[in-house]
């Protein structure tokens, strides 16, 4: 394996653009979990959907939360958006997901190598680690870098018909999120449960 991360041939994309492309592909009330910070800001900015959940803390738990949704509703496709820094906080979750093999779960990692929101400090993994290699090593065989936007859309299409969990890693630029999620955790949770058909509004 080529471990020289600076020599990657993957295109540097933009988080909001990639997120918007994902949302455009979702036609069947798929659930989307947005990780802490920019990841859910761009999910919010891409246009609120009733099946979106926005994290306001608990860094690193986008994939575990999405796993819980996927286990609760095996007929619904579940996508999770996570940053590389967040994922580094909870790498063990990849093995948990690989063990449980939820066929309806797709993980998307937005990798810019920095903690953008705190001042763009590089992550400890930035120049040495490969997210997809970590995911494969954790047991998620269906993990791939998106080469460019077109390739990302192809990987999403594949994921929508997948029979096992998938991870898509996207190299992104250092731009901040383009929106700001309304920070109302009770409403976020309640509306998400309505969107998943678990509850009816009062």
């Amino acid at each position, binding site marked *: 394996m080529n471990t020289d991360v600076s020599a990657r041939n993957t295109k540097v994309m933009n988080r909001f653009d990639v997120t918007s492309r994902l949302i455009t592909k979702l036609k069947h009330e798929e659930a989307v979990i947005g990780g802490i910070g920019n990841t859910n800001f761009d999910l919010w900015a891409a246009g609120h959907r009733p099946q979106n959940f926005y994290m*306001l803390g608990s860094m690193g738990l986008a994939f575990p939360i999405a796993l819980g949704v996927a286990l609760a509703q095996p007929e619904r496709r579940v996508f999770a958006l996570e940053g590389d820094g967040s994922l580094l906080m909870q790498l063990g979750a990849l093995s948990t997901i690989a063990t*449980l093999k939820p066929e309806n779960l797709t993980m998307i990692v937005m990798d810019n190598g920095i903690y953008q929101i705190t001042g763009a400090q590089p992550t400890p993994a930035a120049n040495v680690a490969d997210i997809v290699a970590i995911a494969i090593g954790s047991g998620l065989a269906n993990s791939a870098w998106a080469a460019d936007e077109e390739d990302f859309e192809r990987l999403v299409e594949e994921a929508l018909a997948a029979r096992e969990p998938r991870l898509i890693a996207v190299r992104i630029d250092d731009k901040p999120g383009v929106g700001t999620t309304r920070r109302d955790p009770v409403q976020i949770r309640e509306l998400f449960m309505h969107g998943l058909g678990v509850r009816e509004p009062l």
Partner: protein
Amino acid sequence: MAVAEQQTSRQPTQESGGRSWHTIVLQTLKRNEISLIPYVPDRVLTPLIKNLHADPFFTTFATAREEEAVGIVSGAWMGGRRGAVLMQTSGFATLANVLASLAVPYQIPLIMFVSERGTLGEFNYGQSLVCRTMRPVLDSLALEHHTITRLDELEFIADRSIKQAVTTQAPVALILNPLLTGGKVFDK
């Protein structure tokens, strides 16, 4: 484990129909339709974990960290499936952030069973210190918690607490004291 079982057996059994603490916990989970059980293991919890794995009603699996398990049952709750997290005292000590940023503000009925180490015969100084952080953290967030010491009170406390967590949409910690489980004692 033999020690724990032995000490458990000295508890009064007539009020509980001869059932062990772990049988009562399993049956109480099932009666309340709690079927998703992520855990980080603990010696004392071993018979409960073994029986949960053996019962197809439950989806029982280990996670790498306790907060990961909290994330999983939180997602499952929002998707309409009930879960509970099993851990030991030191695992609870890793949860302050996820309690304060996910379970409490999003009003998620997070059900936690904590096997209590660090007291009543602890042999590891670090465990006894970490145990002292548990109730202050729970109290600082005004979280409901009960320390269960008696076999004849276990079912009432666990069943009522689970129902209260669900109906009030608030987390609860059920602390399984060595008086109930026998705890873990110095053997090697």
